[in-house]
């Protein structure tokens, strides 16, 4: 799980079992690169560059981090491993946007008018429907009343997939079948959520590549149509990114943000070998916080992202 090696103890234990991925994690690689050094030299910076780029952090973000370190070193006179560790931690911390105050960390809904509406968007195959299933489970566990909207009416059997999740978790799924107008489904779902006094309504949408303008317009429309029912919805527009995605994630964030004002990110499939480093740059550039991370196949395998835990785990020994 590389970069994001920061799970609560019992979950971590489960994930670590047999995987030994920490060997290649960013943490241990940086640690190794740091070990025994008393100066920041070109060798170290080259190594740091390779570590960051190989984690999909991207050239620009990598160079930014390296430049800042060079600056700080020439100013503060680097002395030892511990200081360099602190320095790196500070620089990466500075890149990640502060978590929003109203989004608490344990699947607690903020104090807004109910239902709290979450619209989930992303390219094909990143894990939107699975993430929604897991979210529904987590929010339901917290005692919230959840309604799901099956607005992916395009991909073969997508409605069925969400319905299976609905049954599994025990939450209602509002659907109008395949090929229905997704905006109408979203409208209906929010309306049902209002009528049923639900706390949270999560809308699934079809995966779409961000360079297809007509499909992106459709997303804007889905959002607009929901707003006819009540102001301020959707409260959360969640862009789902696949941890294995490379630099294209920037374009995804750009286009989806333009179409729907994305205000939260979910990073999925972190239980694989992909490091998901691109999220650092994306999060920084668009000032969009990472909200959830997917770490496995089971219903429980979705966690709320915590920046400070993340940094701690990245740099603790």
């Amino acid at each position, binding site marked *: 799980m590389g970069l994001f090696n920061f799970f609560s103890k019992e979950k971590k234990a489960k994930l670590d079992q*047999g*995987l030994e*991925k920490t060997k290649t994690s960013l943490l241990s690689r940086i640690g190794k690169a740091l070990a025994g050094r008393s100066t920041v030299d070109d060798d170290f910076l080259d190594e740091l560059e*390779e570590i960051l*780029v*190989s*984690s*999909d952090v*991207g*050239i620009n973000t990598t160079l930014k981090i390296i430049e800042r370190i060079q600056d700080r070193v020439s100013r503060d006179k680097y002395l030892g491993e511990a200081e360099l560790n602190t320095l790196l931690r500070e620089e990466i911390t500075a890149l990640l946007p502060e978590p929003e105050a109203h989004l608490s960390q344990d699947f607690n809904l903020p104090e807004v008018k109910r239902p709290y509406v979450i619209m989930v968007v992303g*390219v*094909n*195959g*990143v*894990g939107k429907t*699975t993430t929604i*299933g897991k979210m529904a489970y987590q929010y339901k566990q917290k005692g919230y009343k959840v309604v799901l909207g099956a607005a992916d009416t*395009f*991909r*073969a*059997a*997508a409605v*069925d*997939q969400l*319905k*299976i*999740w609905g049954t*599994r978790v025990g939450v209602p799924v509002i659907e109008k079948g395949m090929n229905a107008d997704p905006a109408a489904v979203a409208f209906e779902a929010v309306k049902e959520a209002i009528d049923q006094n639900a706390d949270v309504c999560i809308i699934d949408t079809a995966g779409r*590549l*961000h*360079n*297809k*303008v*007509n499909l992106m317009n459709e997303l804007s429309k889905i959002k607009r149509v929901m707003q006819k029912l009540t102001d301020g919805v959707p409260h959360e527009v969640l862009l789902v990114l*696949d*941890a*294995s*995605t*490379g*630099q*294209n*994630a920037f*374009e995804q964030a750009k286009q989806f943000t333009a179409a729907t004002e994305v205000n939260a990110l979910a990073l999925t*499939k972190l*239980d*694989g*070998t*992909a*490091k998901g480093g*691109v999220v650092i740059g994306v999060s920084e550039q668009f000032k969009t916080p990472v909200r959830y991370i997917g770490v496995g*196949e089971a219903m429980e395998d979705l966690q709320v992202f915590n920046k400070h835990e993340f940094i701690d785990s990245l740099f603790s020994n």
Partner: protein
Amino acid sequence: MFENLSARLEGAFKTLKGQGKITELNIAETVKEIRKALVEADVNYKIAKTFTDEVKAEALGQNVLTAVSPGQLMVKIVNDKLQELLGGSTSEINLNANPAIILIAGLQGSGKTTFSGKLSKFIKSKGRNVLLVAGDVYRPAAIDQLKVLGEQVGVEVYTEIENKNPVEIAQNAIKHAKSNGFNVVIVDTAGRLSVDEQMMTEIANVKKAVNPTEILFVVDSMTGQDAVNTAQAFNERLDFNGVVLTKLDGDTRGGAALSIKSVVNKPIKFVSMGEKMEALDVFHPDRMASRILGMGDIVSLVERAQEVFDQEEAERLQKKMSRNEFNFEDFLSQLQQIKKMGNIKDLMGMIPGVGKAIKDIDINDDAFKGIEAIIQSMTPEERRKPELMNGSRRKRIAIGSGQGVEEVNKLMKQFEEMRKMMKTMNKLQGAGRSMRGLPFRR
């Protein structure tokens, strides 16, 4: 699809323009730029490094003095190297067995099921009798998804709803294929992470049990640095025969293709680029390399056109054109043929010089909808005799099609121009007419 990488490389070459010859000094910046461009394009860090080192060594070598311009020389060296990296020659899918068994493997969400549907259609169109097998027993509704796709392309889907054992399902499916005259079996499988020991063992067992003729590793073209690790892990367990790159209709730079090819040394056999079941192409490394360098891919375009265009229909049209009898009915049928070829932007992108120009322009796949609506609002007689169209007919058609009268007029004008052009072309040359004079609006 690789426009971005081409653009970056062109940018890198710019710094060389106007230089007399390549020297250690003036190439340094270019080499750095190429490397940066490759890494930004998601080519693996180490592979990009090796690649640029080799480019540099060659550039500084024997050809320097004879080079007309260093820029041209660099284009050639990079192009050759890219071709080498991408694999040299074309590699087709092996169906030499009865039944030929194709096993599909890859990560979650890479596009295996969609690709399986496309592949079944592709092989069916070659006249084979194909059976799809729903081997993803884990993801909710994955079986239904394959069933829907199978129905769309007219291919039977073998399922065992209650059975949770993919090895058994695959074995039973092959028995079913043998006794029912299927000669190609495509086994879709669940997505799995390369570090999931249990799941990797499972797919290795499927392989052992059915002894596939061909194992294809499906990978999302948007994959970043991890492409190398995943491809390597799957290759170690399955020793797959080829790679399938999906979602190439996006704007990813597709560096993963270069990384995977060079790390597992297996050919990329297909590229998949759209949600339509036709949007599948055989991979041609040579074309892809020139495409990366912005030289277009005219050959693919022509081949795709040939596949979809009904030969008889084309001949019929050609005759009509030569007699100047081309009418709105023919026009409508031609539009429908074009739509069958897939995403219009992809098609345009294959034309040399166009790819970069339309990078940021959105070409609506529905661009022909208005035209179709207008033609469909005409009476059969009007369609056959465009000269009938007077003011009141145009007005009626405008109302019927929900378009403005000016749209109808524009179409009439375009149509007349097209007829004129056909007449001229008839005089000028013979073959290939049916492809020309199509109004890509604006």
